[in-house]
């Protein structure tokens, strides 16, 4: 049996089919929750943002213009939720690149953490605007144009931010392993 497309599930949702909504939630919950966790840094806030994102899907199902681009729409909605939380918490710029190694020395970290943990720590310490392009690219494998449509930037800006984020992280990683 063929898996129904997003557009078909949206159409079924409009006919009050609860299972269609559950299927869409199952399809995208990991991507949306992961994006929220990576951006917000804690699971509790990420749970709220993900919940609100799917509620918006629920209430906008009747007016979605391009159901075939649902993943992008959900990520874009999740991004708005995250930004709203940043504003509420007055956390527009949680960290700066220069803060990355201020608390722990490379030696402390290499003793206490695996590479993946170090990478995750460094990722969390990136500015939100750099972190989000890296998350969308590395975890969701989105193209530059897809990322640009979610963040409202140009492809060239996405390319530039992605490079800068990688450059900072790669340079920091070099400190740990050379």
């Amino acid at each position, binding site marked *: 049996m063929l898996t129904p497309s997003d557009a078909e599930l949206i159409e079924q949702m409009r006919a009050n089919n609860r299972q269609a909504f559950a299927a869409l*939630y199952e399809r995208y*919950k990991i991507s949306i929750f992961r994006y929220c966790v990576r951006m917000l840094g804690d699971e509790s806030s990420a749970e709220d943002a993900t*919940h609100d994102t799917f509620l918006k899907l*629920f209430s906008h199902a009747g*007016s979605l213009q391009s159901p075939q681009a649902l993943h992008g729409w959900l990520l874009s909605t999740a991004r708005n939720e995250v930004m709203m939380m940043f504003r509420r918490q007055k956390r527009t710029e949680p960290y700066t690149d220069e803060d990355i190694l201020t608390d722990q020395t490379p030696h402390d970290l290499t003793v206490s953490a695996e590479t993946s943990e170090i990478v995750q720590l460094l990722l969390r310490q990136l500015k939100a605007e750099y972190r989000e392009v890296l998350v969308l690219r*590395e975890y969701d494998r989105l193209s530059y144009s897809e990322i640009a449509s979610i963040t409202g930037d140009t492809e060239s800006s996405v390319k530039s931010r992605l490079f800068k984020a*990688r450059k900072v992280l*790669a340079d920091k*990683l*070099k400190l740990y392993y050379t």
Partner: protein
Amino acid sequence: MNCTSIQESLSQWMDGELPSPGGAELFTHLSACEACRTFFKNLHLLSHELSSAPPQQVPPSLDRRVLAVNLSAATWKRRIPWPHPGRTYSIRAIGLAVLLSTIAMGFVSSLLYHDSQPQQTIVCLTPLPEVEVTGYVVVAPSHTKGMSQ
């Protein structure tokens, strides 16, 4: 190309977004530049570590909260295509537009009706001091000229 632009191109290459002619120059540079090779190695390490992170677990409490929403209570804004292809208008917006148009048309037509009424004229046959008229133009007959006010 300097090292910064080479490294920017390497980042694009890893994403499969580098225009095809750029590849050859990139790898010629890499074979000769230790700094860019190190950058490339760390870029790979970074990408590997990010993509090989354990799958994100979604808390069961989130599943319960999201799936508890009441589907039948959704207030969906159904949209209909009209009149331009590719554009849609909500029923609520159309209803509001019709209502406002009706009110505006009623207002304008009442003004027009009021203005188009012929001016009413009363011919005063009795001596003017005994008549109280408001809102009308009073025209006295010729034999009472000089008494009108």
